[in-house]
């Protein structure tokens, strides 16, 4: 740390690393990011189905059309409420992760759900495409999110 009196060296708008991937099951002009679902070298921030214990309950609802499959993860309880996600997979790629349930059970959860929905969603996808080992930030509900996601992938 320098001894500069001025402590704030930079102020900038947050800049994302990539344009928003087209996270949709329908055909898209921009290919979604390649994500190896079963890659042993997947970064830690990513779900790694092969290395984690199986969830205690099976996921539900696999729907398939053409080469696209959607898998719904199990519902996971958190201190804020229940979390459940649905994953859309094309071949070996995750192309979309959609939260089906996020907590609403407390007053502050209204805020959490409002803000955390898209944020949680970014974790599952960006963590892989950005090649991150680990993410720094609050993770209470994202743990449940990850568990639901894993249960979906394991039963893919």
């Amino acid at each position, binding site marked *: 740390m320098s001894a500069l009196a001025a402590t704030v060296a930079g102020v900038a708008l*947050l800049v994302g690393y990539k344009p928003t991937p087209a996270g949709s099951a329908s055909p898209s002009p921009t290919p979604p990011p390649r994500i190896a679902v079963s890659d042993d070298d997947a970064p830690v921030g990513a779900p790694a189905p092969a290395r984690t214990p199986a969830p205690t309950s099976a996921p539900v609802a696999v729907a398939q059309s053409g080469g696209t499959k959607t898998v719904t993860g199990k519902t996971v309880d958190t201190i804020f409420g229940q979390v459940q996600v649905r994953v859309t997979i094309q071949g070996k790629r995750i192309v979309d992760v959609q939260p089906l349930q996020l907590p609403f059970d407390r007053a502050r*959860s209204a805020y959490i759900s409002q803000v955390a929905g898209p944020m949680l969603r970014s974790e599952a996808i960006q963590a892989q495409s950005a090649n991150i080992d680990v993410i720094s930030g609050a993770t209470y509900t994202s743990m449940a999110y990850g568990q639901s996601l894993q249960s979906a992938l394991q039963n893919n």
Partner: protein
Amino acid sequence: MRRVRDVMGMPVTADLRDERPDAAAALDALYAELERIDAAYSPFRGDSLVSRVNAGALDLARADGELADVVALCRRYEAATDGYFSAWRGARFDPSGLVKGWAIDRACRILDARGFARYFVDAAGDVRTRGERAPGEPWRIGIRHPVERDKVARVVLAYDLAVATSGTYEKGAHIDDPHTGRPATELLSLTVVGPDIVVADVYATAAFAMGRRALDFIAARDGYEAYAIDPDLRATWTSAFEAYCEPVTA
């Protein structure tokens, strides 16, 4: 070898990249230590030391051994943060804000003592790294973007580093300004990096409660840098923070 366990009420990940046959045993020892710490210091366990203190069955002034060390650390950082970090709410003792980082540090010491030199330990988003993720490659730690999907705000490149983030975006405005008793709302998240996870974690919590003055506080601390995101999704950082980061590509 990587393992994730729910312990101390949060997910804790330990990832060892040293390929050694005793890695599993080291992880067993690491999580056993975290369980021991939780049993001793959890405010949610009726038989913990902390609960006994609050029940009047144990006098902090007469605490000895490890509990005395923890109390001393709490007092030190309360003073070092102008009271923005405090383990006391009135008469109630809750060292959780310190114990989290301290537990990570204890876990890392177990790995160090066994000669592991390439690993990280992550407790609910507070991370201590050591060595390299792969030969010649630093660990890559994403700072969670508080709102935008598919994005991290920055990527911190780390060898031996502690990274702690306090934020309101997921747990709600959960950090109170101890001087007003009201939730701190001026920032969405504050990330602190530096050599010591106990310090980084306590500073992140305390400075977050300071709001916009957070960066001034961290900037005045040798060896520590910070990156803040405010509700307008503007990021502000201390002068040398950039040195830890992967350059941003548009």
